Structures are given as C-alpha cells and as structure tokens.
C-alpha cells in the first residue's frame, strides 16, 4: 500500500525536490551569487517578511482583481459573440471575418496605445486582459456551437424542442466542453497579459512589486513575484479542472476520475 502511495502521489515530487536541494546547495556554496539567483531560503525569508507587513496580500489582491475584471469583461463579450455567430448565420456572415482579422493583432502590441488611451491606471490593464481573453473564449464558443452533432439537433426537434429549450438541453451542453477549453486558454493568456502590462507600467500589483525590487537589486523579491504568478496560474488551472469535472461528469473522459 505504501508502495502504491509512493508511486502515485510522491513520485511527481521527487524531481522538483532534487532541483530545490541542488539550488540551495549551489547558492550556499557560493557558485551562484545572490544577485543573480538567491537561495530558496532567501526567497522564503522575503516571502515571510512581505506576509508580515501585509504588503504581499495587497499586491496579490490588486493583481487578481485586475485579472478577474478583464476575464469577466472579455469573457462575457467573447461568449456573447461566440453564441451569436454560432447560432445565427446572418450574424456569422456579418461579424466573423472582421473578428478573425482583429484576432491577428497581437494584443500586447496595443500597450503603447493603451497607455495613451487609459493612462497607466486600472483601465489599461483591464482592457488588455479583456482583449486577450476575448479570442480564445469567442473561438471555442463559436466552434463548440457550430460542431454540435446535427443528429442530436434533429432528434430534439422531433421531440418538440425549439428555441430556448433546444439551446438549454442540446446546444449549450454540447458546446460546453469546447467552451471550457476556451476558458483554460483564456486563463493562461489572462495572467500572461497582466504580467506584461504590470511590468511595463503600474503603481501597484505583483508586476509593480518585482519592478521596484529590480531597482533595488532585490532578486529574492523578483523570484518571489515570479513564483506567485506561477502559483496563481496553477490555481486558475486547477479551478477550471474542477469545473470540468463537475459540469462534464457525463463525459467519458471525466468518469474514471469522478
């Protein structure tokens, strides 16, 4: 039983553990100067210090709020257009090619324009995140709706479903797996966009924290910031995974683990 536990739960942690030990050892033995890369213990100490002062929570709070606001705005617009164009041919013909054109604009290229439009306040960050998450959510919703098995739609019609009922019982659940894939992509883009936006210009948030640390050569805080981003990203990913397990319990792919 212990062997089973070891193989399933502990094995994935072996390599990260070794890396951590090696990192600590090389830092302590002076192979890597603290200015280049601080030891794990130093990063940990920095974390404790910032937790004590409460500063870290303020930055995480600000960053998370920006991320969520952008996701909410961009995601709901993407979802709406995805549904609209997936369901209506007219709307599809009218809007889709334009949206696909705009998709080719790398959204981070908008940063200078964004700063001119919105200043370096919240507006510019929320706008960038919203712009970034719009496309994965739009595209996956759109394709999800378009790829619903026509046989199921036909069946629904034979059984008297139409309009909202057909959407609720057939179209939406059929498109949901694709939509959730879109959400997962969007979460990745959300953090990436926010990191860049906060690093370029901000007066609060984790990006701001690391940029200020750079000026004072506090590599421990920079590394801490990077780790926090990684952690938040992982958190977002895990939460969509949980949503998938809950909402897609019917899906054969999720039944082994459920």
């Amino acid at each position, binding site marked *: 039983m212990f062997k089973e536990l070891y193989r399933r739960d502990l094995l994935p942690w072996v390599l990260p553990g070794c890396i951590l030990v090696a990192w600590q050892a090389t830092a302590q033995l002076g192979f890597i100067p603290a200015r280049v890369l601080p030891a794990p213990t130093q990063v940990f100490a920095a974390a404790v210090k910032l937790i004590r002062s409460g500063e870290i929570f303020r930055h995480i709070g600000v960053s998370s709020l920006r991320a969520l606001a952008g996701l909410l705005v961009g995601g709901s617009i993407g979802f709406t257009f995805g549904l609209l164009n997936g369901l209506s041919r007219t709307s599809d013909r009218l809007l889709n090619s334009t949206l696909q054109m705009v998709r080719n604009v790398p959204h981070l290229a908008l940063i200078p324009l964004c700063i001119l439009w919105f200043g370096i306040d919240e507006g510019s960050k929320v706008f960038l995140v919203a712009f970034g998450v719009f496309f994965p959510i739009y595209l996956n919703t759109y394709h999800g709706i378009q790829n619903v098995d026509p046989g199921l739609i036909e069946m629904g019609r034979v059984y008297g479903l139409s309009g909202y009922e057909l959407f609720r019982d057939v179209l939406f659940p059929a498109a949901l797996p694709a939509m959730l894939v879109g959400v997962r992509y969007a979460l990745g883009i959300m953090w990436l966009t926010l990191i860049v936006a906060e690093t370029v210009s901000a007066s609060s948030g984790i990006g701001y924290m690391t940029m200020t640390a750079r000026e004072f050569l506090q590599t421990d805080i920079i590394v801490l910031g990077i780790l926090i981003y990684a952690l938040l990203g992982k958190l977002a990913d895990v939460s969509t995974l949980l949503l998938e397990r809950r909402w897609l319990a*019917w899906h054969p792919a999720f*039944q082994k683990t459920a």
Partner: protein
Amino acid sequence: MSSQTAPARAHAEIDAIGGAEIRLSAVSKSFVRQAVLKELNLVVRPGEFLAIVGRSGCGKSTLLRLIAGLDAADSGAILLNDQPAQKKGQQIRVMFQDARLLPWKHVLQNVGIGARGTWEAKALSALEDVGLSARANDWPSALSGGQKQRVALARALMSHPQVLLLDEPLGSLDALTRLEMQKLIERVWLRQRFTAILVTHDVTEAVTLADRIVLLKDGVVSLIHPVAQARPRALGDPDLGRIEAHILERLLDAKG
C-alpha cells in the same frame, strides 16, 4: 415483462387513441437533379405495422423523413388522419439508426426529453417496458448499443405517439440483440397499437414484424405483400420463408 394494474389502466386509454392513418398521395422529392421519390402513393392503415424494404438509395429513408416532417416534399400531400402531417408533429416519433441520446442527461431525463408537466413517472414506466428501469440514473455512455436503442424506444413511446417511424433502428446491433429488439418492438406495438413504419434492408426482419411489406423501387411502390401469419411468429416458419424468398427475388429483380 412485469405489467401491473396501473399500466393496464393506461393501456385502455391508449387503445382509445390508437394509431393514425397515413395517406401519401403523389409525393415527389428530389435532391440535386436526382429524383428520389416519384409521385408515390401509399396508404398506411391505422395501427398497422408496415415494413418498407428496398435497395439502398431507393428512397425509403427519404420517405420516412418526409412523413416525420424532417424534410419537406417537393409536391404531393402527406396526410395524418386527413390532416397535414406537419401540424401533427407531436404524435409522430422517430427511432433513428443511432440512438441519439443526449450524453449529458441521465437515462431517465433522456426518456423524458421534450415532455411537459410531470413526466418522471411516465418516463420510468416507459423504461420499465423496455426492461431498463434499473439504469434510470446512469449516463448513456455506460450503456451498450442495444441498451441505448432500448432507451431510444422508451423515449419514443413515452408520449404514446400515434405513429412510430423506425429508420433501420436495429441495423448496427449484433444478431442476437437484434432478435431481442424485434420481439420487444412487437410486444410494445401489440400493447399500444400505434401505426408503425419500419424501414429496413433486412427482409427477414420485415417478414417477422410487418402486417404488410412495401417494396420500393426507383421512387415508386413496386410491390405490396401482406403477411397474415399469427404473432408471435416463429423463426424458420416455412410460410414466412416463402414470403421472404419471394420478396428477395423481387428485390434482386429490381436491379435490372
């Protein structure tokens, strides 16, 4: 099958509804220059079990889709009890080649799809009729192919339709499951007496189940053969064998 007193009472109500008469007059349908049905005339009697056989591409599935209202005829009329069939959509049910269950709904919810009001009891008794009430709360993905088609049958019969259209529903099942399903379909048909139209390429199946067999050739009815044998029909009955041979011969003739 377990038939208690409650279904027996429901049975009496259903008899009052019975099957509908379907009258097709001069029905034509073509797809991209290709005429599939050519002024086809056919009357299906109320409560009758009609089988339509024919070579692939003879238009038998198209005919079924027209009756179901899934496609519109180019010309001609399809009347259900002397009313245009489209307006009677709720009384016509279809069983497709594949079960077409919604994978995100439990078996019971699949049976009750489109139902209004309190449907759970009716859906459960329909599931009981096909012997799957124990699986009511399973996901469809947990069922075998034959079980899925049985759920589809329960779904079709829950609302006690006047007409059941069967579009080769047993085509993808293995031979044994197919025989079981044929018996099941016959049993529920004898109980509910809806009008049944079975499209099939399996002449044995048609002979086993049908009151009359319609042979479709080049978009018109080329033969109507009655099958008067008593039910349930024994496998290997020599009279049925003769009918089967006769129809198969005509089918093969239809090639030239």
